């Protein structure tokens, strides 16, 4: 059974990857993305690193990311990812949904328990 942290991470990976790439404003490769996400979350989001690649490939397939290989053949080549127009639209949608979700959840959790009558 997944912990709350694992569920939250799983459900928000697309959002945080898109946001990171947009904020950085430059294409990034998988290793960089993982390190920056860990750094941004102060280590709270610790990914099983290998599982970021299926997600990146899935996002590319959905048209949210585009990729290209950098580096000369024979050297260490890196596949870098950048956000597409569709990715920007998805980011806006998901951010809006997340803000609504967060505000609603905060209201629900911050509500004082009803006193027993």
């Amino acid at each position, binding site marked *: 059974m997944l912990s709350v942290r694992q569920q939250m991470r799983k459900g928000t990976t697309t959002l945080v990857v898109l946001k990171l790439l947009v904020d950085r404003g430059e294409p990034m490769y998988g290793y960089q993305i993982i390190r920056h996400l860990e750094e941004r979350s102060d280590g709270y989001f610790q990914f099983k690193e290998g599982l970021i690649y299926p997600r990146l*490939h899935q996002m590319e397939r959905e048209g949210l990311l585009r990729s290209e290989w950098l580096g000369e053949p024979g050297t260490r080549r890196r596949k870098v990812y950048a956000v597409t127009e569709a990715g920007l639209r998805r980011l806006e949608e998901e951010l809006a949904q997340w803000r609504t979700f967060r505000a609603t959840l905060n209201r629900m959790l911050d509500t004082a328990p009803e006193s027993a009558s």
Partner: protein
Amino acid sequence: MSDIEGLLRQIQSELDLDRETEQKVLAEIRTHLEETVIEAMSAGMSLEEALAQAAACFGVAPEVGQALQAAHAGWATADAVVAAGLPVLLALVLRWLVFAPDGTAIGWQQVLVGPAFWAVALAALLVPLLKFERWRYALVSWGFFWVVTVIFVLGPALRW
């Protein structure tokens, strides 16, 4: 870095992709693992420790392989459908532009100076330039279906 090769073999055993895609996927993972090891070694770890940490942080290799396979499943089919379907569609449009329904081509010289014919012809020539995930396979499919289409769709109408 024998442990990296071992991880890559475990991932590869879960993949059932075309050779080109598989190689690209494994190259990306290899780069990631090598960078992880280099970073760990630069932080003072021995090679063995760095390899062990890279493997631990990476996750369960077969699980990653299965997820990669799932992420790529279906791409090839979509490419093949587009590569095969576009030449057929474009050939049918060209046939409609040039030939009468009974297969005669009276006045075909006038069609050749019209923009519609050249627009379709240009689109047909540019199809291979579309970015297919498996572009070599798509290009071969594109060429094959063009030949088949010309033989079976345009060929019977070439009675003039």
